[in-house]
């Protein structure tokens, strides 16, 4: 919807709002932007459309029931929420996770990272107007979903993590299949790299678009690949010890490993995520090679575990690196069935603030790809924002169309 404004000097500016139901957005969120000509001069956003009160519901359920709810905070990166929640409870109760379970958790988390990043690559391609690439990447993604299903029984919500360990072991027989998957992604890395990093049209649309400088990344507290692409070396897998990561040899993936420089633009964010797909495949291989034998869960009998958790008094936190950045869970137990408090902070909450410097002074046609470049996840972010404001609905296709047109023009120009 367009709204015309005149400022004191008589200059006209327009404000457009995008969303909450909009083809350029995969999930409901509302972006309000002021524009002058083609330039974005002001950015604001409204949340709360997906708020379901998950934390509040958590204080009315017992920890085993909450695990089900925690997985449904976000369908894409569900394992990180259930793992962070379990970690917080384990932390409060002083439960030790068996070593083998830590490895299985790591493998499951890395499989999820592969699926999430490949999915994102498809969304990014769609925003740029390359629908065939989107279909290609989503086809690539089916391989990891099959493997996840093979290991856990489910395609999306894996339900493999439980408090004190994991629910299913990885058997000797299953290892070859996992190795096949990692080989598949190590191979497709080259192909994806060719599509996204070598293609001149993608490059000219993403290079120097949506820049987030290192300073801005620090000020807006960006996390995950968004921060790393701007040159901030932070990766919870390296900075904090959890699961099997301390025993693995890994370092944060930075875009300058490929190009030798860090610009903090959309292109760098693509590089970071592609590198991480490769890294995840390598981590899974390492885990399979050095996984110890042993128990997979602290306490198998759920009633016994619940009885033990009921006696727990204290606080616990769980922090880990989800595909989009740091996830943080806090739990306070007061010796009752349900926790007294449960707080979740998901990575998009931080990364959304980075939208403001990224979108400023960019063209309208670049809004979709810049908005998508942080890999926003509204269902994670909207748990705890109080709803209230109603806003008008918009179903313009214009934005996506503009983006596609821009790609077409660039392609012609490069011919």
């Amino acid at each position, binding site marked *: 919807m367009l709204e015309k404004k005149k400022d004191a000097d008589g200059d006209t500016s327009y404000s457009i709002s995008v969303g909450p139901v909009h083809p350029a957005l995969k999930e409901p969120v509302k972006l309000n932007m002021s524009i002058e000509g083609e330039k974005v001069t002001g950015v604001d956003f409204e949340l709360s459309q997906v708020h379901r009160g998950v934390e*509040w519901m958590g204080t009315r359920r017992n920890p085993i029931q909450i695990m089900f709810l925690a997985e*449904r905070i976000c369908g894409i990166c569900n394992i990180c929420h259930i793992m962070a929640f379990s970690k917080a409870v384990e932390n409060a109760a002083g439960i030790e996770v068996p070593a083998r379970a830590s490895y299985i958790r790591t493998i499951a988390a890395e499989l999820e990272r592969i699926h999430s990043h490949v999915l994102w690559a498809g969304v990014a391609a769609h925003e740029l107007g390359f629908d065939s690439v989107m279909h290609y990447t989503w086809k690539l993604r089916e391989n990891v979903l099959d493997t996840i299903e093979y290991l856990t029984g489910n395609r999306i919500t894996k339900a493999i993590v439980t408090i004190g360990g994991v629910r299913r072991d990885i058997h000797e027989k299953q290892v070859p299949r996992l190795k096949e998957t990692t080989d598949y992604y190590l191979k497709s890395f080259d192909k994806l790299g060719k599509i996204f990093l070598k293609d001149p049209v993608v490059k000219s649309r993403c290079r120097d678009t949506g820049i987030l400088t290192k300073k801005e990344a620090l000020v807006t507290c960006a996390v995950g690949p968004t921060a790393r692409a701007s040159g901030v070396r932070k990766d919870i897998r390296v900075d904090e010890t959890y699961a099997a990561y301390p025993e693995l040899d890994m370092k944060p993936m930075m875009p300058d490993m490929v190009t030798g420089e860090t610009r903090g633009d959309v292109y760098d964010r693509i590089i970071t995520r592609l590198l991480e797909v490769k890294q995840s495949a390598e981590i899974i291989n390492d885990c399979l090679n050095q996984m110890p034998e042993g128990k997979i869960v602290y306490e198998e009998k759920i009633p016994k575990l619940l009885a033990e958790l009921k006696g727990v008094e204290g606080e616990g936190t769980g922090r880990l690196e989800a595909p989009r950045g740091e996830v943080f869970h806090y739990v306070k137990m007061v010796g009752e069935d349900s926790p007294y408090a449960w707080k979740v902070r998901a990575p998009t909450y931080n990364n959304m603030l980075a939208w403001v410097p990224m979108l400023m002074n960019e063209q309208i046609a670049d809004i979709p790809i810049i908005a998508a470049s942080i890999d926003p996840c509204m269902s994670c972010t909207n748990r705890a924002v109080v709803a209230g404001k109603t806003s008008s609905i918009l179903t313009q296709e214009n934005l996506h169309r503009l983006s596609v047109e821009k790609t077409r023009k660039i392609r012609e120009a490069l011919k």
Partner: protein
Amino acid sequence: MSIKDLNRSLWVFHVNTGSCNGCDIEIVAALTPRYDAERFGVKLVGTPRHADVLLVTGPVTKDMKDKLKRVYDQTPDPKVVMSIGNCGNSGGCFYESYNIDGPIDKVVPVDVYVAGCPPRPEAIIDGVVKAWKKLEDLEAKK
């Protein structure tokens, strides 16, 4: 019903009313090469005004209630509404939340329910076939 009976392409519009994304990505998976519902002409469109079928996911948060209603009103008749996923069908694991006005059938009339949390792409395609059948019945009545 066989492929012969399909007399045109079916265009669908997807509304997320507060879902966890699980169902949404399975909808996209149903359209992409592995399951490839697009080969039958099923296409995700950008506006409800072009759509025959509404794919609704999520438990309908208070904020999205009137938006869902408006999207419903904007969709031309005859139309079919599909509720995808347990949380849209019944509230699912969010049933007691203070911020939901759902399930979906409390807000708009639903024709096809797809169960699962999330349902598999095969189940979603099965639901779309049922919706198709229903749409043709509705058109025959006109």
